[in-house]
């Protein structure tokens, strides 16, 4: 396909997003809460779309399609375990994050942890962990875009350029109008993601499987319908993803933006429906690709190879839907890291800083972060799905601290610091060195280490005074929400 068509499609899509973003900018008020949390006034539908579009990224249409292509139904199951565990955890945690945000004025999840444990160093440490782990995660998005544009254009748009266009678009949406712009454009991206996927499903079904898709795949590639994953791989990939929604800051920060309890309900149910439809569609594409484009050397190229066989207009629509998935994740990362850098690092180092200065410094880090992520993306490391899982695996190190913050009054600041740092180091080291002692994947070891240290050190040290008040307040969130509205 001619690169001109790809540039034109991107320009039209970007223009639509820009109109929505401009509307959001017109409503932009002053202050940090307004910029980073849309003044905590996001409702059900936008809340559901922004959460869904933020969570479901280019990983799905590139990485998951590739994983289903190479390893069959197990990859679908792994994504479903993530979805169902997330839904149940969201019902438990969103109300707690939300009420804590309203009561104590939190803007970032790192700020919540630092305040709950009464230790500002925790905010800084958690912020640094977020930044380090989000670099490969952001790189994954850029890799997806780079691979896709390069393949679609037959090399006319080089990988380096394809992986550079999306962050620029994401930067524009996030930079000039903050969370409201990001959330509104995410709704547009979410709709494009669904429309693109449904269109592709229709085409594949009619053109490539006239005898029926499921029966054809069952007859020609039955091995892909069998569950062939080993237990340790299943555990190593599922474990980080079960808690992914709570640990990744651009997702958990969205728990602060909701207007009321109805919006919380809308966000959870809407995310569930979106997630189910999108996951099923994407997994079908992976299975269909086994039949349509068999024998690919790189599993991640299954979707680009599939698109090379469909009409140009449809291929462009799907490509834009993948770009939409990517941008909606990238702009959320941008915004989240921006708030984290300003709030949890710069403000802690300079407590008397004004809100304007905090915002200024937060934004300043963004281009630097992107350049690093873009640099990592140029290395084209491994399979996209493994790289994504490595990010969420390292984030598991703060899981005991997060659970303890909400449910265990005995949890202490010393325990958080002493558990999270070694756990991140061990997880990262095991991943880099390819170590799997006793066959267990790095995140499992990371979680074991952080949990044991967190519990032992908590019993050896004195809990902060705020612990009791915080745990009681968030556990009684229903009564407190009622009191807030009366």
């Amino acid at each position: 396909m001619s690169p001109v068509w790809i540039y034109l499609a991107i320009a039209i899509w970007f223009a639509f997003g820009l109109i929505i973003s401009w509307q959001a900018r017109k409503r932009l008020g002053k202050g940090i809460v307004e910029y980073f949390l849309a003044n905590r006034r996001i409702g059900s539908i936008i809340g559901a779309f922004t959460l869904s579009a933020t969570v479901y990224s280019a990983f799905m249409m590139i990485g998951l399609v590739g994983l289903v292509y190479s390893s069959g139904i197990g990859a679908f199951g792994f994504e479903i375990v993530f979805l169902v565990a997330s839904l149940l955890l969201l019902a438990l945690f969103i109300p707690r994050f939300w009420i804590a945000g309203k009561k104590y004025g939190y803007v970032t999840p790192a700020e919540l942890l630092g305040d709950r444990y009464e230790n500002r160093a925790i905010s800084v440490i958690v912020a640094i962990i977020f930044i380090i782990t989000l670099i490969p995660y952001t790189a994954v998005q850029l890799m997806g875009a780079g691979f896709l544009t390069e393949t679609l254009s037959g090399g006319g748009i080089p990988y380096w350029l394809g992986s550079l266009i999306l962050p620029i678009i994401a930067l524009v949406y996030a930079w000039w109008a903050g969370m409201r712009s990001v959330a509104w454009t995410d709704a547009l991206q979410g709709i494009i993601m669904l429309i693109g996927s449904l269109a592709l499903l229709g085409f594949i079904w009619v053109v490539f499987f006239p005898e029926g898709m499921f029966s054809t795949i069952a007859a020609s590639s039955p091995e892909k319908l069998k569950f062939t994953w080993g237990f340790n791989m299943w555990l190593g990939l599922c474990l980080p993803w079960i808690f992914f929604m709570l640990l990744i800051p651009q997702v958990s920060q969205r728990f602060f933006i909701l207007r009321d309890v109805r919006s919380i309900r809308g966000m959870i149910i809407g995310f569930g429906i979106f997630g189910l439809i999108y996951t099923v569609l994407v997994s079908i594409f992976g299975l269909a690709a086994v039949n349509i484009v068999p024998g690919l050397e790189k599993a991640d190229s299954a979707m680009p190879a599939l698109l090379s066989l469909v009409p140009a207009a449809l291929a462009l629509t799907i490509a834009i839907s993948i770009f939409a998935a990517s941008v909606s994740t990238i702009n959320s990362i941008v915004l989240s890291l921006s708030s984290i850098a300003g709030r949890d690092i710069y403000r802690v180092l300079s407590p008397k800083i004004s809100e304007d200065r905090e915002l200024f410094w937060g934004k300043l880090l963004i281009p630097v972060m992107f350049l690093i992520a873009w640099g990592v993306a140029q290395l084209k490391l491994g399979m996209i799905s493994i790289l994504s899982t490595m990010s969420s695996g390292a984030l598991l190190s703060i899981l005991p601290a997060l659970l303890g913050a909400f449910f265990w009054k005995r949890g202490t600041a010393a325990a958080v610091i002493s558990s999270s740092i070694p756990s991140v180091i061990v997880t990262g080291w095991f991943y880099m060195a390819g170590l799997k002692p006793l066959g267990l994947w790095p995140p499992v070891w990371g979680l074991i280490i952080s949990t044991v240290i967190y519990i032992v050190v908590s019993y050896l040290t004195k809990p902060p005074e705020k612990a009791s008040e915080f745990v009681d307040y968030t556990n009684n969130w229903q009564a407190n929400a009622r009191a807030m509205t009366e």
Partner: protein
Amino acid sequence: MKGSELQLVWVLVAVIILTFIVPFTVLKYTPTFSGGFAFFSLVPVATIIYIAIYVAKSWKELLK
């Protein structure tokens, strides 16, 4: 944590156990769509319905 929320935790534990047992016992031997694909599609459908009912009941007062 209140009783209804504990129920959420137990459901989470049950779903995780289910999704960790069924694949290694049943789905290894069922190379059909009515095996793995149907199982992994139905689990989230049931979860969404359960959560919709749970929220409607447990958050009743706050949703008025």
